[in-house]
């Protein structure tokens, strides 16, 4: 049980760390990229994906969340 808890804590710390905004933003970014890549506007995905990554970083740096 201790090892399972430790394993779970490791992955929580690895993925979420001290900013849940980054983790949630990353998941939302990946989902958006997937939807765009499989829609009729797939070329836009290669611009939207990096832009969404930057928005996630800026949101995580916003004073109210950091």
């Amino acid at each position, binding site marked *: 049980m201790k090892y399972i808890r430790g394993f779970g804590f*490791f992955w929580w710390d*690895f*993925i979420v*760390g*001290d*900013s849940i905004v*980054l*983790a949630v933003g*990353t*998941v939302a*970014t*990946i989902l958006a*990229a*997937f939807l*765009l*890549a*499989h829609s009729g506007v*797939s*070329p836009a*995905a*290669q611009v939207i*994906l*990096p832009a969404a*990554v*930057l928005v*996630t*970083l*800026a949101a*995580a*740096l916003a*004073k109210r969340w*950091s």
Partner: protein
Amino acid sequence: MNSVLIFSGAFLAASVEMVEALTIVLAVGVTRGWRASLVGVGVGLLALAVVVGALGPSLVTYVPLNALRVVIGSLLLVFGLQWLRKAIMRATGRKALHDEALIYQREVAELERDPIPEGFDWVAFTVSFKGIFLEGLEVAFIVLTFGANHGSYGLTLVAALAAAVIITSIGLLVRAPLSRVPENTIKFAVGLLLTSFGTFWTGEGVGVDWSLSDFTIPVLIGVFALASFLLLRLLRPSTTKPVTLPEVAAS
């Protein structure tokens, strides 16, 4: 002539993938320590050997490369963003707005203990392992696909081995100079690299068609670097003494 072209193509393609793996291993080794990072490399190579040895040429059919790219890319992306965020926060000294001296001391203490544990560093191990395993699989794909086109795998295997020797030698040469760069500066650069690789691989995995192919990575690094410096300038308080990346690291 066909053999020269096949060799050159396999060599260059394998070199690109190996440079990507080397970048990640160097970045993790310099910032988190070499022991766990090199163990990650060793275990990654072992896992790779098992997968390639077990599947052989049928590897191309059975390994879901895009699913691996999404999983590994998204983990690198979230980890890279965490480092980038921390590096920007340290460089801007934002908490110093309240009690500069006290919080600066806290920041220095945090830099000294964060985030490397005293025991085995599983984060360094995991990131190195993933970098080696994914890039190694891509090299294996290159050897197999080029080899299948040529009719034998010997030539493409030699090309990949030649690339491995050259890229590893370059890694050994640049390791020492990199170790002398200030810590927060390195962490900032590592955050940029992991975020860029993570964005690229995740994009490939979910079906984004990068029009520049692998050359998208340096473009992403440039764009993220520019945006990060803009964020750094925006967030730096105008009423307190600016804290630069080298100053924070040197303290």
